[in-house]
C-alpha cells in the first residue's frame, strides 16, 4: 500500500505534487516538500541501511543533519553518483534514485549481518588490530576484505558533469541559523542599514518553529515565520540563504557557507552554467550563532533496531511531513520535551502505549497535558531494552536508580513498534570550537555551551536557552549589541509572544542500566554510525584509555559523517561515570571543520580543469603554438620545450636545435626572465650589498653577471645586471626567482637600509626578450637594425639602444650558450612584429627556434649553472668555482660574506661543481643519481655527491653531466660510480665543467 504512514491532512508538504523515486531499486511515491527520509517513512520502509561494522539492520532515527543511519548513495547515473548523503537532508525530486550504502546482497537480507551476529561478541574496539596482527605479511590481504566488508558510499568513476563556484561577501552581521533566535536577530538588524546575511541548513527558514506546537501571538508559529521571511526578502541589505550550511568557522570571523543550489531539483543542475552548489566566503564583523540544540537519544539495549527514534524527530515527521512512522508508541524520557512526541502521535490518531519517565514526580505543563489526554505515565522508570530485530516489537521497562546505576523492581514488557527517546538537549556548539575554543560545561543545562570566541555571540538553544520567549529575546539582544557595535542605529521592534510553559527540571539521563552488566547485556549503542557500544567504551577504559581523546580514537566514537552529533555527549557521560569523574573533568573533544561533509567540487570551485592554475604566456606564444612547439611548465609559465619537425622525437629535435645554434643561428624566447628596473643615487651601493661581486666601476651600457647569496652564504639567484646610467640599472633574475628577488630587495631596503635612495620596479612583463645566438647572429640582426654591430663597436657584455625592425630596442650582448649572442628586448606589444621580422630571413641564415631543453644542453656544455638545478640552497659561490665573482674586499659586508668564513664553509671537502663524462658514451646519467667512490662498499654506501644536470651533447657526441662531488675540485681525472636502483652501476670520469671552448672565444667574435 502506497504511503501507508501518510496522514491525509496537515504538514508542510504539497499533496498536489506527487513525486516518483526509487530506493534500492524499488519504486515509491512522495510529495513535494518531503525529504527522502520522510518519504521512506511515509511508505513504511523500516530498514534503510546496514551498520558499518556489525551490519545490523538500521532505520531512520532523526529528521535533520544528526541522522546517523539513513546514509545513502545518491544518483541515477555513474557520473552523478554522490556518496554518503543523509536521507533526512535530501529534498525529494522527481526521478531521485538512492541506494543504501551497506548491505549485501540487500539491506533486508544481508550476509555480513550473520558475521556480525556470530562474531559480534569478539568484534570489540581494536578488533582489527588485535585479530589480524600476525602474520604481518598477511595484513595487506586481510585489509582488502575488511575494506570491502565495511565502509560507506563510493566515489563515481566518471567526471562530475556539474560545476561549482565560490562567492565572496563581506557583511556587518552574519546570522547562522534561521530558527526563532536567528529570525528575531535578523528582524532586529534589518532596516538599520547594516549588511546582514542569514543562513540555515534546512530547505526553508524557521528551524524549530516549523515543527513546534507552541503558537506565537496565538497563531501557528509557521505563520510568523512566513511573515518574517517576506519582510526580510523585501530588504536589499539582507541576504537570505536557505539550504546553506555554515560548515567552517575560521579566524577573525571568516565563515564558509555551503549553499546547495540545485541539489533539491535533480541529479544534475538543470540550467546551463548554473553551479550545483556554491561556497560563500564570508567575512563578518559580527557573527550571531543561532544553531540551536540537538536532542540526543537514550542509550539502552538494542536501541538500534529500526523503530527507535528521537522524540523531536517523531514530532517533526508528524507535524512537518504528515508522516506517523508507526502504530504503537512508547516514549522513554528524562525531560518534559519528550512528552510532545506522544501528544503529537495521539493527535495523529495512533496509539500511545506509555510515556516512561525516569523522574520520580514529573509535573510540568506537558506532563499535565498528557495526563489529561489519558496517556499512561510510568514514573521513576526507563526502557532498558528494545525487542525485535528488523523492527521494534516491544519495550522492556523497569524502575531505575540512575545514581546507583541499577534497575529495581519488576520488569514490564510493553508491546509497541516505535520507541522514541529523549535524553536531553546538546547545544550545537561545533562552529564556536573550530578555531580552538573548548566548549564549556553548563551544569544547569546538563550540556556544553560554546566557549568564548571574539566577535561571536551565541543565542537561543546553542547557549542552552530553551523557553521560546527567552530564545526570541536572546536573538534580539544579540542583534542590538552587534548592530550598535558596527555603528548603526536600530528601529524599535516588537517581538511575538509565545505562551510560556512551565517545565519540570530535567534529569541527567544518558545510559540506562540493564539487568545484566553492560558487557553482557545486548548491545547498547552510543554511536550508531560507527557501531560504538557502551560495552566498547567500557573496554577502552579498562584497557587504560582514560583521556576522552584516546577513548574517541580507540573506539571510533564520533568519527564518520555525523561527527558524533547524537553520540558524543552520551559517550562522554558514560566515560565519566566509568572513570568516576564529572563530565567537565572528562572534557570534550574539539570540533574542526567541516560541520557536515562537503563535496570536493565546492571546495575547488572553478579552480579546476583549464582554470586550475594560471598559465602565463609570453608575447610570442601564439607563434610557438603555430610552429608546433611542445611546452614545459616553468613555474606558471608555459615555455617552449622543443620544436619538433615532422615525426621527430624529442631527442632528434634537441640534437638538431643544438647543432643549429652552434653552426648557424638559433632563437629563444627568453621573455620569462625576471627584470627589475633600479633607479636612485644609491643604486650602485645597494647592488654591492646584495650581490657578491663589484659594481663600483661598471660603466655605462656595460653588463655584468652577478651572483646573489642569502646571509648564510648560500647561492640564491643569479643574473646579468646592466648599467643604464649612473643612477639606473636593469637587473635580471631567473624565471622562477623574479617575484622572490623583488621582495628580497624590498625586504632589505625597507627593514635595514631605508636611508638608501633607490627604487625597485618590476618590468618583467613590459619587456619581451628574444635571444638570437650562433655564428650567423650578427649577420641576421644586421638585416633589421641600425645599430653598429661590428665586433669592436659593440663588444661582448655591452648593451646598445637602437631600432630593430622599426621598433625601439635594447640589445644586450650576453651569452648563455657560449656562442655569439644578441638578446633583443622590445616593448612586449611590438615583440611579435620583431620576432616575425627576424623569421623573414629564416632561410638565409638557417634561423632555428629552440626551446628550454636545448637551452639547458648548450649552457651545460659551457659549465654555466642554473640556480635551483645545480644549486639547492646549500652551495656557496666557491663550491661552484666562482671565486672570480666574489668581491671579498668590498667596503660593505655584503649579504652572505660573513657566513663564508665559517669553518663549515671553509672545508676542503665540501661538495664542489665538476663535470662528468660517462665511460660509456651512449650513457646519459640520471639527474639526481648519487655518486660513490667505491662501488663495492657495503650498503648503506657513503654518498659523495649527486648528478645535478645531465644531457646528450650532439657536439660532443656523447652524454655528459654536471655534478656536485665532495672535494671535486681536487679530483680531476678520477673515476666515480653511480649505483642505480635497478642494480646497474655507471662509471664516469671527473672533468672540468666546461666541456667546450674553455677560453670562451666563440661568444667574443
Amino acid at each position, binding site marked *: 500500500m502506497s504511503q501507508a504512514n501518510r496522514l491525509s491532512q496537515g504538514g508542510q508538504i504539497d499533496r498536489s505534487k506527487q513525486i516518483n523515486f526509487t530506493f534500492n531499486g524499488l519504486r515509491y511515491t512522495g510529495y513535494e516538500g518531503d525529504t527522502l527520509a520522510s518519504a521512506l517513512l511515509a511508505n513504511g520502509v523500516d530498514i534503510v541501511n546496514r551498520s558499518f561494522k556489525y551490519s545490523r539492520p538500521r532505520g531512520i532515527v532523526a529528521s535533520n543533519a544528526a541522522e546517523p543511519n539513513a546514509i545513502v548513495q545518491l544518483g541515477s547515473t555513474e557520473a552523478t553518483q554522490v556518496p554518503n548523503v543523509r536521507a533526512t537532508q535530501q529534498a525529494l525530486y522527481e526521478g531521485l534514485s538512492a541506494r543504501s550504502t551497506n548491505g549485501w546482497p540487500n539491506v533486508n537480507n544481508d550476509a555480513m549481518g550473520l558475521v556480525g551476529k556470530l562474531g559480534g561478541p569478539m568484534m570489540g574496539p581494536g578488533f582489527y588490530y588485535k585479530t589480524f596482527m600476525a602474520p604481518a605479511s598477511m595484513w595487506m590481504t586481510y585489509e582488502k576484505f575488511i575494506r570491502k566488508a565495511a565502509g560507506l558510499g563510493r566515489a563515481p568513476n566518471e567526471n562530475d558533469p556539474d560545476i561549482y563556484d565560490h562567492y565572496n561577501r563581506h557583511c556587518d552581521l552574519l546570522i547562522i541559523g534561521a530558527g526563532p533566535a536567528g529570525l528575531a536577530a535578523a528582524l532586529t538588524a534589518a532596516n538599520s542599514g547594516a549588511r546582514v546575511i542569514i543562513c540555515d541548513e534546512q530547505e526553508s527558514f524557521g528551524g524549530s518553529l516549523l515543527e513546534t506546537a507552541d503558537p506565537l501571538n496565538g497563531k501557528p508559529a509557521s505563520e510568523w515565520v512566513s511573515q518574517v521571511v517576506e519582510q526580510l526578502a523585501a530588504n536589499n541589505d539582507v541576504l537570505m540563504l536557505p539550504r546553506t550550511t555554515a560548515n567552517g568557522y575560521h*579566524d*577573525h570571523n571568516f565563515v564558509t557557507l555551503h549553499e546547495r543550489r540545485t541539489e533539491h531539483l535533480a541529479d544534475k543542475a538543470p540550467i546551463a552554467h548554473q553551479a550545483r552548489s556554491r561556497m560563500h566566503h564570508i*567575512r563578518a564583523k559580527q557573527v550571531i550563532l543561532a544553531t540551536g540544540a540537538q536532542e540526543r537519544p537514550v542509550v539502552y539495549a538494542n536501541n538500534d533496531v529500526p523503530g527507535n527514534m528521537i522524540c523531536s524527530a517523531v514530532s517533526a515527521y508528524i507535524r512537518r511531513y504528515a508522516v506517523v512512522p508507526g502504530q504503537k508508541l512508547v516514549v522513554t524520557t528524562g525531560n518534559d520535551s519528550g512528552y510532545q512526541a506522544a501528544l503529537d502521535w495521539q493527535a495523529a490518531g495512533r496509539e500511545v502505549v506509555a510515556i516512561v519517565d525516569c523522574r520520580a514526580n514529573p509535573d510540568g505543563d506537558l506532563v499535565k497535558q498528557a495526563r489529561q489526554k489519558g496517556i499512561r505515565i510510568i514514573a521513576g522508570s526507563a526502557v532498558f531494552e528494545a525487542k525485535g530485530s528488523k523492527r521494534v516489537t516491544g519495550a522492556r521497562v523497569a524502575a531505575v536508580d540512575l545514581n546507583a546505576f541499577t534497575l529495581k523492581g519488576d520488569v514490564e514488557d510493553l508491546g509497541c513498534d516505535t520507541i522514541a527517546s529523549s535524553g536531553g538537549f546538546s547545544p550545537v556548539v561545533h562552529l564556536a570550537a573550530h578555531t580552538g575554543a573548548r566548549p564549556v560545561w553548563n551544569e544547569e543545562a546538563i550540556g556544553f555551551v560554546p566557549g568564548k570566541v571574539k566577535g561571536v555571540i551565541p543565542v537561543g538553544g546553542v547557549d542552552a536557552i530553551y523557553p521560546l520567549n527567552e530564545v526570541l529575546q536572546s536573538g534580539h539582544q544579540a542583534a542590538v549589541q552587534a548592530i550598535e557595535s558596527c555603528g548603526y542605529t536600530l528601529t524599535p521592534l516588537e517581538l511575538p509572544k509565545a505562551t510560556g510553559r512551565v517545565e519540570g527540571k530535567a534529569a541527567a539521563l544518558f545510559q540506562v542500566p540493564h539487568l545484566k552488566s553492560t558487557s553482557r547485556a545486548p548491545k547498547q549503542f552510543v554511536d550508531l554510525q560507527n557501531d560504538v557500544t557502551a560495552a566498547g567504551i567500557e573496554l577502552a577504559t579498562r584497557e587504560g584509555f582514560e583521556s576522552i581523546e584516546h577513548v574517541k580514537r580507540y573506539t571510533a566514537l564520533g568519527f564518520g559523517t555525523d561527527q558524533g552529533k547524537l553520540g558524543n555527549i552520551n559517550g562522554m557521560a558514560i566515560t565519566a561515570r566509568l572513570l568516576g569523574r564529572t563530565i567537565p573533568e572528562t572534557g570534550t573533544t574539539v570540533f574542526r571543520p567541516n560541520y557536515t561533509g562537503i563535496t570536493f567540487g565546492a571546495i575547488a570551485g572553478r579552480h579546476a580543469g583549464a582554470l586550475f592554475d594560471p598559465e602565463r604566456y609570453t608575447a610570442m606564444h601564439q607563434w610557438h603554438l603555430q610552429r608546433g612547439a611542445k611546452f614545459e611548465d616553468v613555474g606558471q609559465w608555459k615555455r617552449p620545450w622543443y620544436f619538433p619537425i615532422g615525426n621527430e622525437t624529442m631527442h632528434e629535435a634537441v640534437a638538431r636545435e643544438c647543432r643549429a645554434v652552434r653552426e648557424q643561428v638559433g632563437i629563444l624566447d627568453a621573455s620569462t626572465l625576471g627584470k627589475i628596473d633600479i633607479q636612485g643615487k644609491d643604486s650602485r651601493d645597494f647592488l654591492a650589498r646584495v650581490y657578491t661581486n663589484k659594481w663600483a666601476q661598471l660603466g655605462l651600457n656595460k653588463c655584468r653577471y652577478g651572483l646573489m647569496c642569502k*646571509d648564510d652564504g648560500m647561492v640564491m639567484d643569479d643574473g646579468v645586471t646592466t648599467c643604464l646610467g649612473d643612477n639606473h640599472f636593469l637587473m635580471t633574475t631567473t624565471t622562477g626567482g623574479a617575484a622572490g628577488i623583488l621582495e628580497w630587495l*624590498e625586504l632589505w631596503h625597507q627593514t635595514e637600509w631605508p636611508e638608501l635612495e633607490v627604487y625597485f620596479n618590476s618590468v618583467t612583463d613590459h619587456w619581451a626578450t628574444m635571444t638570437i645566438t650562433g655564428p650567423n647572429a650578427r649577420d641576421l640582426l644586421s638585416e633589421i637594425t641600425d645599430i653598429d654591430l661590428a665586433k669592436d663597436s659593440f663588444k661582448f657584455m655591452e648593451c646598445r639602444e637602437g631600432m630593430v625592425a622599426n621598433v625601439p630596442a635594447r640589445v644586450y650582448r650576453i651569452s648563455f650558450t657560449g656562442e655569439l649572442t644578441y638578446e633583443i628586448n622590445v616593448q612586449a606589444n611590438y615583440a611579435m612584429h620583431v620576432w616575425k621580422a627576424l623569421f623573414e630571413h629564416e632561410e638565409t641564415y638557417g634561423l632555428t627556434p629552440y626551446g628550454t631543453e636545448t637551452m639547458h644542453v648548450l649552457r651545460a656544455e659551457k659549465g654555466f649553472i642554473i640556480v635551483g638545478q645545480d644549486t639547492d640552497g646549500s652551495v656557496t659561490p666557491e663550491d661552484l668555482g666562482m671565486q672570480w665573482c666574489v668581491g671579498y674586499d668590498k667596503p660593505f659586508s655584503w649579504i652572505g660574506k660573513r657566513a663564508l668564513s*665559517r669553518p663549515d664553509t671553509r672545508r676542503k671537502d665540501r661538495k664542489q661543481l665538476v663535470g662528468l663524462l660517462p665511460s660509456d658514451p651512449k650513457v646519459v646519467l640520471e639527474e639526481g643519481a648519487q655518486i660513490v667512490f667505491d662501488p663495492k662498499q657495503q650498503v648503506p654506501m657513503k654518498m659523495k655527491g649527486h648528478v645535478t644536470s645531465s644531457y646528450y651533447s650532439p657536439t660532443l657526441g656523447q652524454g655528459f653531466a654536471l655534478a656536485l662531488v665532495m672535494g671535486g675540485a681536487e679530483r680531476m681525472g678520477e673515476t666515480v660510480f653511480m649505483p642505480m636502483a635497478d642494480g646497474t652501476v655507471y662509471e664516469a670520469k671527473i672533468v672540468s665543467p666546461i666541456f667546450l671552448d674553455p677560453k670562451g672565444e666563440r661568444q667574443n667574435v
Partner: protein
Amino acid sequence: MFHIYCPYCGEHREENEFRPKGQAHIMRPKDPESCSDEEWADYLFFRDNPKGIHHEMWVHATGCRKFFNMTRDTVSYEILEVYKMGEQPKITAASRVVGGEK
C-alpha cells in the same frame, strides 16, 4: 584566514594578500666581521617561539608591497596591533596579562 589591517593602505585585507616574514625586530649586526661564529649563527637561524605574544613581520605582497610589523597571540591568533616598519610595539608580553583560557 586572518583579517589583517595594513597600516599603509589603511584598511583590513584578507590574509592571502600578505606573506608572513618571520620574527620582527631582528637587526642585522652592523659589523658582521666582529661577530663570532656563534653570534652569526644566532642571527641567522635562532628564533623565538613563544606561546602567547609574538612580534612578527608581514609584507602586503599583492597590495602595497610594504613591510610592517604585527603583534599577535600565537595561541588565540588574535591580532593585537599592527605598526609600521621602524616603529615599536605598544603591546608586549610584559605589558599585557594574557588570559588563561584558550
